[in-house]
């Protein structure tokens, strides 16, 4: 443990009142919209359990529509009142009519929008590589305010992942996401490449607090019971007081002094029943007591990253791995395995639980649906880029063809190989399911709406 760093605090009764009013307004809006889905953000709720409000089809869906953007979609879509919101690496946030796939509005930021928008209180919030949190009117796209961090950057290290020359500092081509904001306690809370976790007033955009970690924070914070949980690339996982940003506890994950490969929390945590679950690049899924920070269990995956954010439902935790490409279901209380299934390629996108179906996107351009109880494959949707398989980026078994993608470890080869891989229409975006329709972005720049 170490002392928390307080840079900013709520300073006036008026501000506190404003926060309370906005929070009530947001809650009221949700209730007013009745039992039908009014809004859904990244990982479902603020605790990020990954549970969708609607069931996904158990048979291969058809494409209802696709919406082309100007670059990769890394962002995971959100939804409110018939509108799907998604960011694109073309620098824009899009609002798209869920029924027709037609654009309602778009908002240009100053960099790739690799963050997933949060919706609440009639607003949509998203982080861009321009180093700003953008707050927009959800209906019109009108800018409400912007909040500037000290700037975005990717995780970097000398000789990262074995890239050569080893004395060269490389930016991580697999640090593909920006932190996605979470709405709680009248605040918008998110991490930044400047190493800080920020809490900003939803109404005014004024900073309420900031907590400094030792490196890039691109995981999305989760909120539960007045606490914020988030991991950093400094190898630590933090619990913070949501109102003040005071550190409550931290847990130490793995540190890789050789090539910074087996360290850092890129996975966004989920909280359920007093336990917080998170994956780590140190090749573990961790379960911590949310109150004390005590490690309840860990599930080792060999040397395989857990970039995916865990989903939690009915006493089970679902997560997936990168290199071993396994989808796991484990007992939430004990960490004991329930089932595991082999996916065709690296898994970065997170599992979505939609009724009795688990949806999992893969880097080979496959979106797979599995039976939640058994893990058995139900269907496999493949993007056009994945089917075209230009340059044999995939083997005939639809696995990533490493010899074609990563022929050397020198200079920029890893970044180039990663870019080639993304030409497949990889799924970095996590699926959202609303009213039986699956919304998910591809690195082919398309937002897909899939339905029966």
């Amino acid at each position: 443990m170490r002392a928390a760093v307080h840079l900013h605090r709520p300073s006036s009764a008026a501000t506190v009142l404003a926060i309370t009013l906005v929070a009530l307004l947001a809650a009221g809006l949700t209730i007013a919209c009745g039992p039908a889905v009014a809004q859904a953000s990244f990982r479902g709720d603020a605790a990020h359990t990954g549970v969708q409000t609607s069931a996904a089809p158990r048979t291969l869906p058809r494409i209802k529509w696709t919406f082309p953007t100007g670059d990769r979609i890394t962002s995971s879509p959100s939804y409110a009142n018939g509108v799907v919101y998604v960011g694109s690496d073309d620098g824009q946030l899009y609002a798209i009519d869920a029924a027709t796939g037609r654009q309602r509005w778009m908002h240009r930021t100053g960099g790739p929008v690799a963050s997933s928008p949060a919706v609440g209180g009639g607003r949509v919030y998203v982080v861009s590589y321009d180093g700003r949190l953008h707050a927009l009117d959800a209906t019109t796209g009108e800018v409400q305010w912007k909040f500037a961090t000290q700037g975005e950057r990717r995780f970097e290290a000398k000789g990262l992942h074995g890239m050569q020359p080893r004395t060269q500092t490389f930016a991580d081509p697999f640090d593909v996401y920006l932190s996605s904001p979470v709405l709680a306690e009248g605040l918008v809370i998110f991490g930044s490449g400047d190493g800080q976790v920020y809490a900003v007033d939803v109404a005014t955009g004024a900073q309420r607090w900031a907590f400094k970690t030792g490196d890039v924070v691109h995981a999305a914070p989760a909120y539960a019971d007045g606490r914020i949980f988030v991991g950093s690339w400094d190898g630590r996982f933090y619990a913070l007081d949501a109102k003040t940003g005071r550190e409550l506890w931290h847990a130490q994950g793995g540190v890789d002094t050789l090539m910074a490969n087996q360290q850092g929390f890129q996975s966004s945590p989920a909280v359920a029943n007093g336990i917080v679950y998170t994956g780590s690049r140190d090749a573990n899924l961790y379960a911590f007591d949310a109150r004390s920070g005590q490690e309840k269990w860990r599930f080792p995956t060999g040397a395989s990253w857990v970039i995916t954010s865990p989903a939690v439902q009915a006493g089970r935790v679902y997560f997936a791995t990168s290199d071993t490409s396994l989808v796991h279901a484990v007992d939430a209380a004990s960490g004991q395995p329930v089932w595991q299934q082999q996916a065709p390629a690296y898994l970065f996108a997170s599992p979505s639980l939609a009724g009795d179906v688990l949806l999992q996107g893969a880097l080979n351009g496959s979106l797979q649906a599995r039976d939640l109880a058994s893990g058995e494959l139900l269907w496999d949707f493949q993007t056009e880029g994945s089917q075209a398989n230009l340059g044999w980026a995939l083997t005939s078994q639809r696995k990533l063809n490493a010899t074609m993608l990563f022929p050397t470890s020198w200079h920029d080869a890893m970044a180039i190989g990663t870019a080639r891989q993304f030409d497949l229409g990889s799924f970095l975006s996590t699926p959202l399911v609303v009213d039986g329709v699956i919304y998910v972005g591809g690195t082919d720049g398309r937002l897909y709406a899939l339905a029966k």
Partner: protein
Amino acid sequence: MSSRSFIPTIAGSLLAVSIGATAATNPSGRWEGEARIPGAPQRVVLDLAASPSGEWAGSLTLPGRGVKGAPLDSLKVDANGSVQADAAGAFGGPPSELPTQLAVRMLPDGRLEGEWRQAGHAAALALRRSGEAQVDAPPARTALPAALAGTWRGRYELGGYPREVTLTLQATTSPSTNAGELLIVGKRRSQLVIDRVNAGERFVTLEASAAGIKLEGRWDAATGVFDGSFFQGPFEAPLKLQRDAAGARSGSGS
């Protein structure tokens, strides 16, 4: 990887003609062209030559893929100038169930056409003769001498973490026989097969090719000391091993 080139002699080429291929169908030489992989055409340089004893040898270069002079295995050249070869060694790594192969035949106009197969796919391959063959000799391999047999122990350190090494070697009579086992215990436990050996009187190279791991250094049978380095990918670390007191064990490998 060490590589040595040899230029086939005219006599060698003529011998090749005599053992099968006619002058019109003799594929000896350097061939250059392209594998038409959709979206990413691959340049290919193929060298083929027959040795004085009539055995064909070949190597493969793939510009832009980091492959220079990779040995061709299971090389078959028939009287019609058809060539088939396994090129799995081009990319290293563990054996794949999806082979890397080429299969071409000579056309009446002297070109080679056929298929390039990799990762379960096949693409048209077209090559034109561009000169004399410059076949890269495959890396030298030897059997493991009895004087090196035994159990060797030591440690190396990478990234601040020590790894305990146990190397168990058996004498072999053929370079193609596995020579033992390399056990590395650090954060994880890795049990690897030593499948490539190049042993001289004082210097030895041992490889676990599936893991891309190599041990290289000087050894002394009298003192039972190996003093060298551990290599994996971009990493190299000093490694000193001491043979167990039981000393060298003789015998042939499995």
